[in-house]
């Protein structure tokens, strides 16, 4: 995915009201590839944890015969973390950090749409 394409993908996500930031994360090593995060969000640490969680969920779901995860949603008291695999062989993760009252369905759609643009 080129830098402009990454920026466009993140734009799609962060323009939804209630989204505090979005990242493209390398699934294999948990490093940030691109980001648009609000001040104060610990992007690097969250990226690493998102990558690790994605790995666990992926293995669990494949083992359970459900196929790879296409979207996951960590619900918390004051917000959420939403993740969609993207890129060739799902080597990337699109990650959105949101406030509690966000329209999760809309963010999910934007994440999936952004993932489609990834090569």
């Amino acid at each position: 995915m080129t830098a402009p394409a990454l920026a466009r993908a993140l734009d799609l996500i962060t323009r939804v009201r209630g989204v505090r930031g979005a990242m493209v994360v390398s699934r294999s090593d948990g490093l940030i590839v691109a980001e648009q995060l609000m001040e104060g969000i610990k992007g690097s640490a969250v990226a690493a944890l998102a990558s690790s969680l994605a790995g666990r969920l992926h293995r669990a779901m494949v083992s359970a015969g459900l196929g790879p995860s296409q979207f996951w949603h960590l619900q918390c008291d004051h917000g959420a973390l939403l993740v969609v695999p993207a890129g060739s062989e799902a080597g990337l993760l699109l990650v959105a950090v949101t406030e509690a009252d966000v329209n999760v369905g809309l963010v999910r759609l934007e994440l999936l749409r952004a993932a489609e643009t990834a090569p």
Partner: protein
Amino acid sequence: MSDDVKALSAQLASDPQSLVFLRLGELLRQKRQFDAATRVAQHGLERHPHLADAHDLLARIFADAHDYEHAFDEWDMTLRIAPQHTGALKGLAFLYFKIGDLAQAESHLQAAKDAAPDDPTIEQAFAVIRGEAGATLAPPSPAAAPEQPHVSERRSESVSALPDERIFAGLEGAQEGLLLLDAAGLVLGGALKTPEGKDVTDTVAAYLAGVSQESARAARLLDLGSWRGLSAEGQGGHVYLVQPTPESLLLLMRDRSLPLGRLGLLAQRAAQVARQWLERQR
């Protein structure tokens, strides 16, 4: 088709708005023709959506068909419409008894007794819950059909014989799509099977060890408070993870026909059952 079913069917066909569907559905339930009984009850509910007896009928059909989750929903709906409906109170008592929640079972039976103090089946059900010898419990029958006793020999469930593996007894999919783990990923209850029927309980449990800690860390790093649930969509189904207690993790797995939102509700209900069970183990 028996004559009585034919007669009631004809009566219903001639007057689709009538309440004869209640008698027809009940008759089919007693004949254990659950699919036909369900159709009759559901068609009746389409015309009479706020009729408590219709929801109660559907709940009894589900309960007889061992679909306890839907039975719970229907009895719950019955009580929303008619809070003192004794059939629904006894039905919920039966379901709580099945999952080993004796306090809730007794509470619902007491409410049923308050509403219908002369109903002898309630005392019999109390005897079962208190573990009195020889007593057994079955799904409730309607008040209009006393020949089908509430306490019967049809289903035998001794209170003292609730083994640990039955934590989720009464919850739909308890032996194929529900899993309770401890913090180390060891299985406490439930089981998981692939759509092909292969048991993958231990494999999935091993992969999920550590999910709670990582979810909690991610939430903390993002100042999002505590995590309440983790849902994931797969090509062949959904999973939902919750923490019944800080030291345990519960996974609910279903195919894609069940929307994620509903899966979350089911997971919360299962977590409540698991929490109560875990508390009793201490």
